[in-house]
């Protein structure tokens, strides 16, 4: 029985890879890498859940398991109530998949021919496939870009991404698994993909969206799962996640000086300053001062800097981003 409104359910998913480390010409040693360490989450219909994390965090492994392209070692994953291991064929009928953008099609076929090829593999009757391809070509503006009659090998990366999304939508599946769909795209193409993904969620599709782009996760996803080293370290809406960290903000100071060491010790002694980072350029030094109450200490900071004889070129106070949240949470868990 499908839980009400839940399209994807993942319980304690574990995946281990066995790799072989070479030692000299003959010797080798097996090493077990735990890519997923018992993650659990769910995705509802009409919801975009972002799987956000650095490279090697376990995002693609999760997508591959849900797409029936990889067997988990432990745990359970269900798509519309069907088990990805025991009922793989039922799962396959219900998912739209978008993996790496730059590959995945035949170079000598045109955009339309490629879609027709996959429509046949997905058992879509010829007439329905044609209509559906027309709609998708129009929706993703592939017809305007001339993708219909151009060979895939001549496509730009943006066109390839749009075509990959069109393929994922060929069967109009209720569940979409999108693995870094805007990676390397130009801004217009990335924006188009993001707006379309939002539109698809409004129409009731359950979408699992992986990215390592914090900005993108913030604007696209309804809910975010922060994943690091195969563990979901935090989850919630973008705002909920930002609220989880102490209100650390940054005072950024640009100084016309190369060596600011004498001032650093004095700065660190100011109460309410959590950390000071120094970035050096040719003529300038940028100080990033992390604090929970920038308004209370900014005068003291200016005083210390001017007392040491440095000229302040620019001063600004920054709000925390999702990136700060990620760095904060992962540094605590590690």
């Amino acid at each position, binding site marked *: 029985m499908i839980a009400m409104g839940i399209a994807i359910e993942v319980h304690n998913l574990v995946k281990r890879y066995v790799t072989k480390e070479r030692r000299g010409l003959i010797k080798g040693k097996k090493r077990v890498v735990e890519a997923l360490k018992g993650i659990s989450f769910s995705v509802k219909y009409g919801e975009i859940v972002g799987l956000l994390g650095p490279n090697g965090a376990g995002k693609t492994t999760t997508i591959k398991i849900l797409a029936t*392209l990889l067997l988990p070692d432990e745990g359970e994953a269900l798509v519309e109530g069907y088990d990805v291991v025991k009922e793989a064929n039922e799962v396959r009928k219900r998912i739209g998949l978008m*993996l790496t953008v730059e*590959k*995945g099609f*035949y170079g000598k076929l045109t955009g339309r021919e490629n879609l027709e090829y996959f429509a*046949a*593999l997905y058992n879509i009757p*010829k007439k329905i496939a044609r209509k559906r391809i027309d709609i998708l070509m129009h929706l993703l503006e592939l017809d305007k870009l001339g993708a219909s009659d151009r060979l895939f090998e001549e496509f730009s990366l943006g066109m390839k991404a749009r075509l990959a999304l069109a393929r994922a939508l060929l069967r109009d599946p209720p569940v979409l698994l999108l693995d870094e769909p805007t990676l390397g795209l130009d801004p217009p193409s990335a924006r188009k993909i993001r707006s379309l993904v939002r539109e698809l969620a409004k129409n009731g599709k359950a979408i699992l969206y992986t990215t390592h782009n914090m900005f993108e996760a913030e604007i696209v996803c309804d809910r975010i799962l922060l994943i690091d080293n195969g563990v979901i370290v935090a989850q919630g809406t973008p705002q909920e996640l930002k609220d989880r960290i102490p209100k650390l903000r940054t005072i950024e100071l640009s100084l016309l000086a190369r060596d600011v060491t004498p001032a650093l010790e004095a700065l660190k002694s100011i109460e309410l300053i959590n950390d000071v980072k120094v970035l050096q350029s040719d003529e300038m030094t940028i100080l990033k001062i992390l604090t929970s109450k920038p308004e209370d200490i900014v005068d003291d900071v200016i005083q210390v800097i001017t007392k040491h004889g440095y000229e302040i070129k620019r001063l600004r106070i920054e709000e925390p981003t999702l990136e700060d949240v990620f760095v904060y949470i992962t540094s605590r868990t590690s």
Partner: protein
Amino acid sequence: MVFLDVIRAEMKFVYADIFRRRALLLMMVLWPYLMTLFIVFLGSTLGSIQVFINRFGVNPVPFFIIGSFILLSTLGVLDDIMWKPLYDEMVGVLPYILSSPINRILYYVALPIPRLLIVFLVGMTSVLPILYLFYGLKGILLTFVTMLLASFAALVFTPFVIVCAMLTYIIGGESWRALNVIRPMLFILLGIFYPRWLLPLTLFIVSNILPAAPVVELIQRILLNIVASQGEVLSLLGLAIALGFLYLAPARRLVSSWERRKIREGVRI
């Protein structure tokens, strides 16, 4: 219906591949001529064409042009089935094929059919003119009979090739090198370029496991005018069909085993 859909899909891929690479199309047309020319030239430098005619009762030119055509159609099946998953993995299409709900055995059986249709057309540019030149109007009939039989040989050969491909993938992993070992082995066992009954006894016995071998033998018997009876024709064809069907069940099982292995390791994207 599903079967026809897969053929339709593969036709797009194969036709685009061949017709949009003119050099490949030209090579396919010229290949039987080049092969025949090479063998006849090599043979005539070592011996004489007349000796071949005296021994086998047929001119080597039509014999080898038909041999080249059989090679193109039967071993083309091997190339298609063993090469396609490797190519699909390289261009990143394999994950989408493995995650599609298509019936796998139908998919693999359908794979070589589009190329086979093109090979049939290539036969019109190579086998037909040569046989017409040598046998006149009878040559036209002979062309169609041999081409139909060669295509039939390729079709019954498909399940065996699937077994071969999947076993190779399961045991040794997916590799282009395996294809270069299996191709000449099957080439020798099929007895395409010499009457199969001239094979050493052990090889002749081993060659009987190949579903295409009885059909190749039949084509050669027709060409050499040594077909004994209608019963012999039917028994050779029947044997080929039976062998073809025999390999279907293991082919299905091995395709699933290979896919399971791929999924256990993780399909490369």
